[in-house]
């Protein structure tokens, strides 16, 4: 019997996809000085992907990396890596959600760092 189509592949089924994995990616992007605006642009750029076939989604991710985000190699590299991991239809919305969460988390962490100066006892 063929596996259910709705089951995401391993990287997307990981409990840490939007935890440890996301934070590692965020740290890499931060070290590479990728701006929040690029992440927000990426979220917008990925909206059309939901519902498209895996092969097309993968192709579009690579296209985004090669064109729109060619000036931000760290982000482009991340897109290409994830494009290669897309295996089944269920992976696509999970990847979109992952990048949305990456963008929001980046904004939140940035705001938290700035706000911490207001907190007594914050380091």
């Amino acid at each position, binding site marked *: 019997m063929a596996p259910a189509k709705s089951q995401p592949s391993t990287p997307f089924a990981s*409990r840490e996809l*939007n*935890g440890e994995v996301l*934070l590692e990616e965020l740290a890499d992007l931060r070290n590479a000085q990728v701006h*929040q605006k690029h992440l927000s642009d990426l979220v917008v750029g990925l909206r059309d992907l939901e519902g498209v076939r895996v092969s097309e989604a993968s192709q579009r991710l690579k296209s985004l990396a090669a064109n729109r985000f060619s000036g931000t190699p760290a982000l482009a590299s991340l897109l290409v890596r994830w494009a290669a991991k897309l295996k089944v239809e269920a992976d696509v919305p999970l990847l979109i959600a992952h990048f949305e969460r990456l963008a929001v988390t980046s904004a939140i962490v940035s*705001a938290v760092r700035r706000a911490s100066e207001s*907190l*007594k006892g914050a380091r």
Partner: protein
Amino acid sequence: MSHPVSDETQDHLQQWPARARKLFGELMEDAGSDLQREFIQRAVAAAHTPAEVHAFADALRGMSDEEAYASCTLHDDAPDDYTVSQLLRAEADPLFAFELKGGTIEPNEEEPAPEPVPEPVKSDAPRLDALGFVLAKKKSSDSFEAPLSGAPRPKSLDWNDLPSAKPPPPKKEGPASAGGTRFLEGLLAEATSALRISWKEQDIDSPGGLSLADALASAAGALSRGIPVPCAIGPNPGDHRRFVVLMQLNTSGQSRAWQLYDPFTAELVWANEGDLLMKRELPFANKVNRRLTRIVLPQSLRAAF
């Protein structure tokens, strides 16, 4: 009179605090027609917060069925620039469709409620995927009852301002927290403006704030929609020492675990919900900050998510 509620809506309602569930019952009771009740249910099933559902129900109440149907569903005339994702989500989420078509809701943030009845969060898993909840009878607007009641709902029923089981909050403009400072709200609004998220910062277990159970219930809703939730931690209510972020919620059987991230120490930890509610210790290296003291909840997720 009680109205039938779908299993999916019921799943979400079980994550709401008791007062918010009571509010839901009243909103269903006050709704002008079966169509409005259906939309309210579906907004709940789509993981909107109690405040958003409340505001949505208020907006619906003044509409006829024809107006409500037109405002909350996308038809063949949907503009070409709507994405597939938007169309699918709008199909399942009438509040999303309402906003996509230009409707606005204003979750109430003004007056406190008089009688807090905090209740521990039940341990059901949050439902993540609203897209599976596709409308089965969306073409039957003619068969729904006529509107409408029109009477505005008392603001005191807004779940956003549920007080804790402490004395009533001082009635004044601005923040209710110690020191009168909302540290994060503005910064977050600025940082997430491109993503169209607005935020509300509320103390936990302080006068005028939320109970921890209520705060976690709201945070669960936000996380189920992919929005991490910033919090402050400290030794006592009102004593905010450090900001952390609630990253994920994981449910296993009857227990729920929250993943917390401290951006300053880079600690990423899992904490049992039961332990969080005990307020004795957090699993960070620094044991002084043993409880959540403040939460910043996303309020309005326009067309971004």
